[in-house]
């Protein structure tokens, strides 16, 4: 005899107890510490901070541990925490030109003030599994910056502080030694100026997004957007779907000071430092009736060392400027509504995975409909206006 579906509450409790147990795994294996995750899975932490839009290494590490390494789940945990935090205000715009550089490369100039600083990177490594890492590894040699003249910066004793740049040959101070490539080009008006806005930047976590969205909203959306989604979209622009002829004008990674203007004090006070990766792409633009021919920019920024994300973001940002620059909108990456509506992996994963929820009721009504349509199908033919008229194709709406 059928027993009405009962026991949901106990089933959930049992499932969660089981989850806690598999999360821990074999108890004879030492448990992961948050410091281990933060130090040794640092790029995972960076991604969770970026897409979770919360700069807190410890919380991100906790989220990764709790999520069993599922980064989208970890991002979700961080977001759901972040949304409960009070807002004190907005910082003053941070100055990435004043960044403490740990890595800085330009693909458009062989040499430039400050030089090329390779820093910690997977680039040019051979992707061979290093079986030496399978066991405890000896302390690696640390800290070399690579400068344009081929000089190797002296090793620094602390791994997290390597790649201190050499003072520039011109003898300027360290901070002025790394002007942004785009600023150098802007001096000659060869690239569009960096837009300056006195209007406070919009915040899509406080106001619902509407279309058309301003560039501030778009950039916020992309900064929170899924790395994989942006990567694929950026890639598509390179393969001809909205080609924008990009150059990696500059990618820089390092720490930047965050300041907030204190009304009472009358000046900006430093709040702390965040590590960010910034990418400025340089894109061809042939000019229009009102604009002289000059290069345009795409912009990407992410917390921590997240180069793939920052580069993809810059490509997509530039693609989304098609309308503003009078370009034809033909490709998915140029379609603001398409990109911005689908970039958020917390939203996407929730809606895709909600298909796991019961849909008995809807399915029941669809079942009834299909049965009735089949009866009609088996019955003597009714006049059909077109040949393949009885397909169910256009009835197939997304399950909800």
């Amino acid at each position, binding site marked *: 005899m*059928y027993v*009405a*579906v*009962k*026991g*949901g*509450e106990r*089933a*959930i409790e049992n499932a969660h107890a089981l989850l806690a147990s598999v999360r821990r795994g074999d108890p004879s294996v030492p448990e992961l510490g948050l410091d281990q995750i933060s130090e040794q899975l640092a790029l995972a932490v960076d991604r969770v901070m970026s897409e979770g839009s919360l700069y807190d290494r410890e919380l991100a590490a906790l989220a990764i541990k709790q999520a069993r390494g599922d980064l989208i789940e970890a991002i*979700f945990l961080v*977001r*759901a925490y*972040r*949304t*409960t935090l*009070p807002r004190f205000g907005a910082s003053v715009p941070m100055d990435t030109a004043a960044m403490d550089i740990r890595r800085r490369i330009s693909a458009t100039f062989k040499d430039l003030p400050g030089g090329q600083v390779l820093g910690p990177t997977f680039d040019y490594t051979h992707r061979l599994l290093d079986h030496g890492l399978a066991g405890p590894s000896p302390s690696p040699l640390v800290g070399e910056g690579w400068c344009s003249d081929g000089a190797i910066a002296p090793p620094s004793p602390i791994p997290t502080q390597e790649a201190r740049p050499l003072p520039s040959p011109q003898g300027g101070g360290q901070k002025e030694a790394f002007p942004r490539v785009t600023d150098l080009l802007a001096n000659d008006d060869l690239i569009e100026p960096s837009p300056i806005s006195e209007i406070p930047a919009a915040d899509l*976590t*406080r*106001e*619902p*997004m*509407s*279309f*058309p969205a301003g560039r501030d909203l778009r950039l916020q959306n992309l900064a929170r957007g899924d790395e994989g989604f942006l990567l694929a979209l950026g890639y598509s622009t390179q393969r001809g779907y909205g080609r924008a002829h990009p150059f990696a004008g500059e990618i820089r990674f390092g720490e930047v000071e965050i300041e907030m203007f204190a009304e009472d004090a009358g000046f900006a006070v430093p709040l702390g430092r965040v590590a960010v990766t910034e990418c400025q792409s340089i894109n061809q633009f042939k000019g229009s009736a009102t604009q002289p021919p000059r290069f345009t920019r795409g912009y990407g920024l992410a917390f921590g060392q997240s180069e793939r994300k920052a580069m993809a973001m810059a490509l997509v940002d530039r693609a989304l400027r098609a309308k503003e620059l009078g370009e034809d909108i033909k490709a998915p990456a140029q379609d603001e*509504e398409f990109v911005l*509506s689908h970039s958020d992996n*917390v*939203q996407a*994963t*929730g*809606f*895709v*995975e*909600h298909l796991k*929820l*019961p*849909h*008995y*009721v*809807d399915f*029941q*009504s*669809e*079942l*009834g*409909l299909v049965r*009735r*349509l089949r009866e*009609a199908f088996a019955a003597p033919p*009714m006049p*059909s*206006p077109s040949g393949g*008229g*009885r397909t*169910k194709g*256009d*009835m197939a*709406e*997304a399950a*909800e």
Partner: protein
Amino acid sequence: MNAPAYNFAYLDEQTKRMIRRAILKAIAIPGYQVPFASREMPMPYGWGTGGVQVTAAILGPDDILKVIDQGSDDTTNAVSIRKFFVKTAGVRTTTSTADATVIQTRHRIPEMALRERQTLVFQVPIPEPLRFLEPRETETRRMHALEEYGLMHVKLYEDISRHGEIATSYAYPVRVDGRYVMDPSPTPKFDNPKMNHCPALQLFGAGREKRIYAIPPYTKVKSLDFEDHPFEPYRFNGTCALCGATDSYLDEVITDDRGSRMFVCSDTDHCETRRSSPSRSSGRAGVGSVPRDGRACDPHPIPTSLHQRPHSTLPEDREG
């Protein structure tokens, strides 16, 4: 949920105020989708975050909450949401439709007719009824503004010409107060007539899509149809194997692998109430029965004083 102390019903008061403003606007413009700054909730998007935010914003300490999913109080997600509010708001909960002041639901409207001072909160996945005809939000907002619903009627017409009937069995579009075409959320169209002139307030929350909309009490809600193809609320012609109801919406339960199946009420409270009071077993055990013609089904007469159109300044009474 054990680390910091959260506010009553989880959301901070600023956020609640923002959501309440959106709700008030939604009530003032029945069927219109009001954008709101939906928050990340501690449950995934698509799992009821819109409904949860609406419930959190309207819940008071004296409220009695009922949560159903597919008509049942005991489906996993309903349990999870109910526990969430027990934990964060400490409110009383019930499975009884009659006792509840706030009912959050996914995919069903309770069989028992709702009354005044009750609020039904729907979880909505895709608030835009025109979405599958026109994917662009910019376009659909324009179409709503211009009351340009021809596309929807063409879709329904094409259904009839191909299938002999309107091939939409759930999330069947309605027109609210003669103005906005609205998605009733993926409830089966069997439930559509219950929305018409309903004495309870009906609120719809779409968290991922960041929209709230509403049907105020005693508002005209008409399922889209044609004069020669009137709306029909489909119900499988069967009897509940547990309580014997012949007028409730039924779940089909497969009982073995040889094609045996049985039908039971999808509304578990309705079914249990009927079973525990056998004297009321036949027909309308507190049920707003659903006439086959699909017209107004509310068992209560409509007080004309309350049925004044909020849009009385609009130029003409619209069709539908």
